[in-house]
Every structure is written in C-alpha cells, then in structure tokens.
C-alpha cells in the first residue's frame, strides 16, 4: 500500500498574527511553526493503514521554504518513510490552484493508492487544495472524513463524513484522495528512536524544473485568485471597571446596564 500525505507548515495555533506592512501577507517575524493539525490526522491514518496492511510506504510531501524541512522531519520522526520537499522561489506568490497544480504533478510521479490531505490548513483556511488536486489528477475525492476503513482486498475504501445531523458513509475505488477531519484518529508522538531515525530517512528535494514546470506556470500571473488585502479584525473595546464601595458600585453597574448597555 503506497500512501502519500500532503502536509503544510503553518504558524503555531497560539501565534499572535498581524498583517505584514504590504498588507498582502502576515508578518512572519518571531512566529513559530507546526505541522498543520489536520494534516497530522492524515499522517497518523497513513501510518495506521500501513501497520494494518503490514506492508507499504508512507511519503509526506510539502511545498515551502527551507523551514518546511522541520515539518517534514517531524512527520518522518513519527514514522513516515520518506519525504518530498518541493522548493522554488517562483512558488512564493502562488494561490491554492498553483499549490494543487504543483502537488498533482509531484503526486503523479509516484504510484499512490491513497492520498491524504488535511481538510484545511489552519493558516489560510481555504480548504481548497485537496479537491483541486483530485480534479487535476482525475481522482475520486472524499472530503472531511472522520473514519476510514480499507476493504478486504484493498481495492476500495469506506470513509465516514460528518454532515449536518448525520454521518455519511461513502465507498470509493482507489486510488483516491481524502481530506481529514478531527476525530479521525489520535496522532501519535514521536518516539526517541523515531526522532533519531528521521535523520537518516530519505528527503527528496524537487524544484519546478524537476517537475517539468516553469515559473510562468506557477507564478502570480498563473494564479486564479490574488490576495487584495489582509487586515486585522476590529479591536475589541476595552472593558469598563467600576470603582468604589460595593453598594455604590452595584448601583452604578445597574445604571450602566440599563442606560448604556440597555439590557433591561
């Protein structure tokens, strides 16, 4: 069973995000990064399938700068077998379509039975790349799965999707693309031997030319959407502190609730 998991390195969930000066990106100074949590479900599911089948290979793939290597190593440390790092300066200004285009070309080079994505990356929340890759590769696509089972022969897979008020059970032929939702599994932590071994696992680096793509195919001009502006959400107004003795303060609070907040 040959499984690919496409992962993205994203700012850690507790990061304080503010727009960059040009208003087209976020300010990345001082941010720490993690593997997109939804992608971790994909990695874990891939490892579980491999363990269950008893043979196979798990490949993690990511696009990004040199820093992305950390995210790929993290996946190798938990048990993925090899990593593909797609790195090219021309990719800095791409959109989800460009990402999907590059990944689809990279994925076609491997013979994957199952391809996992996170249902969305927690930085831009687009949730678009998985389905676009499926379209570009002409593969079946099941979105937001929270349960995955391989049938006995490994020819088809059955996945559950949480939909409004019900659970939808879908069967698809393989190869197919799945995007992973919470509750799919509980991602494991890297063991110490796993971390040590991750150093020696193969990490392939591909540029656009290795994928027979050009900067024109993947630059800002080829993108389907462009970011107009990134702004901060409106700042919440400061709270009001009422000073003084308790009876007076309570009276003041009641007055403010009535006259200013108009709650009663």
């Amino acid at each position, binding site marked *: 069973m040959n499984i690919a998991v496409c992962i993205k390195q994203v700012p850690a969930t507790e990061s304080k995000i503010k727009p960059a000066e040009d208003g087209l990106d976020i300010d990345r100074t001082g941010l720490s990064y993690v593997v997109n949590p939804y992608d971790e479900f994909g990695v874990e599911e891939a490892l579980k399938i491999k363990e269950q089948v008893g043979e196979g290979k798990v490949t993690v793939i990511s696009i990004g700068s040199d820093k992305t290597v950390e995210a790929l190593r993290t996946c190798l440390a938990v048990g993925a077998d090899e990593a593909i790092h797609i790195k090219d300066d021309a990719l800095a200004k791409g959109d989800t379509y460009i990402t999907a285009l590059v990944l689809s070309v990279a994925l076609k080079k491997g013979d994957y039975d199952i391809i996992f994505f996170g249902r969305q990356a927690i930085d831009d929340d687009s949730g678009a790349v998985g389905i676009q890759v499926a379209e570009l590769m002409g593969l079946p696509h099941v979105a937001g799965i929270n349960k995955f089972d391989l049938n006995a022969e490994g020819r088809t897979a059955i996945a559950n999707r949480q939909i409004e008020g019900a659970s939808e059970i879908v069967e698809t032929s393989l190869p197919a693309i799945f995007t992973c939702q919470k509750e799919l599994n509980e991602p494991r932590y890297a063991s*110490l031997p*796993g971390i*040590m071994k991750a150093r020696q696992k193969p990490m392939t680096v591909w540029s656009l030319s290795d994928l027979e793509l050009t900067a024109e195919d993947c630059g800002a001009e080829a993108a389907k959407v462009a970011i107009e502006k990134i702004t901060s959400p409106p700042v919440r107004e400061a709270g009001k502190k009422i000073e003084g003795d308790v009876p007076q303060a309570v009276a003041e609070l009641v007055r403010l609730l009535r006259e200013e907040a108009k709650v009663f």
Partner: protein
Amino acid sequence: MCLPYFTLYTFRGRHIGLPLQKQSSWRTYLSDKFDVIIVGAGPAGSAAALTLARAGLSVVVFERGEFPGAKNMFGGVLYTTILNRLVPNFWEDAPLERQIVKRRFGLLSKQSEAAFEFRSEDYNTKPPYNHSFSALRARFDPWLAKKAEEAGAFIIPETVVDDLLWRDGKVVGVKARREGGEMEADVVIAADGVNSFLAKKAGLRKDFKWNVLAVAAKEVIGLPREVIEDRFGLEGDEGVAMEFFGDAVAGMVGGGFIYTNKDTLSVGVACSIDAFIGKKIVPNDLLERFKSHPSIRRLIRKGETLEYSGHMIPEGGHKQVPQVLTDGLLLVGDAAHLVNASLYHEGTNLAMASGLFAAEAIIEAKKRGDFSKEGLGSYHKKLTDSFVFKDLSKFREVEAWAHANPKFFTEYPDLCLDLIKDYFTISEKPKALIQAEVYKKFRKKLSPLRALVELNKVRKALF
C-alpha cells in the same frame, strides 16, 4: 538506582538477546550511542555542544522548550568574552541588541532619586566594544544552538529529560519523556537550569533555601527606536544598563532594571525569594510598583508591553555551588549555581565558560577513555583557575551581607536621599546653616564611626 539491562537491548528493537556478560562490547551494537548527552539548550548547554561537536564528538542536546531559548530568560545584558572564544567575531551575525556604553545605578526613595552614571567613549570604539551587549534570549539562544547544530550537534527540542541512567554507580545516560526514551552516552552534561532536577537526582545538590534564590519578573516593552535613543541619550546602536535599588523594589533585597534593546526595553525586578515572602508581595505586583515609580514611569512612557516573563536566579554565590561533577555527569550554568550576584550581574558568561570548560574536560577525558570523577576532574580545575570561581569566591559574601544588612535597602537609601534633598533645597536660609542642619540630621541617624563601619562592610561585600 540500577539500569535494567533488558530495556537497553530492546529499545531500538533489534538488540534483544545480547548476553549480559558481554557488557564491555555491547556498545558496538548501539549505532546511536552518543559520546555526550546534554540536557538543556541554554548558553551553557549550547557552548558545550558547540565545543564538543567541533572536536568531532557525537553530541545530542535535549531541550524541553519548543525551541532552544523558548523557556529561557535573563535581565538583559550579555558579557561576551567567552562567546568570542566560542564564535570568533560573533558580533557579525549574533542577534544582539545594543552595545552597553553606559552604566547607571540609581538609588530611589519614594520621591527622590540619586544616581551614579558612567559612560565612556572607550566602550564605544569598535566591536566587541566592552564585551557587553543587551540581548533577548528568545533570539540569542536559538542562534547559539544553531551554531552547535551546524557543527554537528543533534538538538532535540520539546523533550523533557526525567531521569539519569546509572550503572555501577556511574551515570551512563538519560531517560527522556518519550517512547523509547532511554539513551546512553559516556558523559551527561546537566545544563538544565537553576532548578536542575538532574543535579538533585544525582545527589549533587540539596533543596534550596529561599534566601539563595531570587525571582525576577520582566516585561519587554516596545518603543520606537528614535524614542529610545532620545530618551536615554544614545546614538545608533549604543545602549545603557540601568539598575535601581531602595524604594524601586519596596526596600527589598534586590533591585530593578531597565536595559535598552533596539526597539524595546527590558524592564524588570529581581529580588530574593525570602524578601517576597517577608513582604507578602508577588513579583508581578512589585514590577507594577517599580514601573509606576516617578523615576521609572517617565522612562517607559507610552511603551507597549510585548512580553512578560518570570524566572528564578541562583544568587547564593560561591557557597551554594554544588559539587559540579560526579562519575559520568557534569553540571554547568545555572544548574551549577554559577551566577555572580554582585553589581556585575554576570550569569550567561559564566554559563558559557562552564559549558566550554566542561566540553574541554570531556575531550581530554575521551583521549584517556576515563569518564570517572577523576577522569573529568579537569573541569573543576578549569573553573577554579578561571574568573568563574575566582569571581564567585571574591563576591562570596554578597548574599549574606545583603540579608544581614536590610538597612542598606531601606533606611540608608531614604536617609541618604533625604540629606541630599535638604542640601539642595533652596531657601533664604544661610547655606552654612543648611549644611550644619544636614550634618546634624545625619549624626542623629547614624554616628560617623558607624557610617564608616557600614561603608566598609559594603566595600568588602560588593567591591
């Protein structure tokens, strides 16, 4: 405590069945065994890792934080003599803030301040200036760790080390909080900070008394570069180190500080834990009090608090330094209680020095293949022969003096400032009379002989 052998032979899943009597050769079966395991990627740990990796030893560094430096904090001034030995011309790419060309010590009462300020253009000629720079540890520590990594050290963040592994009374490795977390090495360096659990587990130190530890609370306050330079009288990358005593910290044993960074200020207080207990005040409240003092308020005006942090500082000095080594284990940095708590406030330089010396001692020990206490003994000798122990020894009375003489933090600053204030208060009273009154007031509070005795105490402890 004895190491269960079977776990060793199974922890990589392929060493099962190795006969116990083959202990001498079992190491060859473990391809991942390291020469040295370092616990903690602060300045001490990274200095050791860098030195060892450069000498061709295999080194792994465990860091419990998300990245090296994530959990580390200091006041804000780094002395760099040792750093220059570790990374020659470090200033070319180290993430430093400003070179310290001005030092200022302020004595505060509720309303007044008297200060001593020293600035020298000789500190401002060319790098490395006076080997003192303001810095932020969240940037500096990862940089130094990266140097070690580039030299070949293997750094594993987000991993807590819970225990040491022992065999025949010798430390032979560590147990990390991860599956398959046991790892062996010839030597373990405990660079795990002031509250070193490894030093305690190894029986090298006892529980602390509250008077030998200080607690610091610090804010990093953002201000535009130009505002900092104008407000503190600086040009370019010049910086100032300011320390405050007396009412700055409610008369407690300790002080407050402001260090200028490029576009932030490091503002904080550091006082002895027993002083906090005695005053029943929490560090955060003391910091707020410090920030609202009329002399401090003006310096941080309109600043935006960007970070808040707190940390313990081992200020017990020479008397508190534990045994720094045992068979297979060395203590460095805060774990060895290496802080000079005099007016120099030197910690990170001592940490890097100890890391360097520990590494040198291990390199020598490896040549002889002897990692026993005796084999590693040159570590202690290097500390003794260098400024590390010499300085700690010279200032060994600071902590005891401070605790035995609380008046120096309360009564005397107030008296001193009161007298200066009277002296400069303008009225139509003849100046001779004012001076006589000031002297009379002084004599009433403190006899001249007593004053000399007290001053001599300060001289002995602090200078």
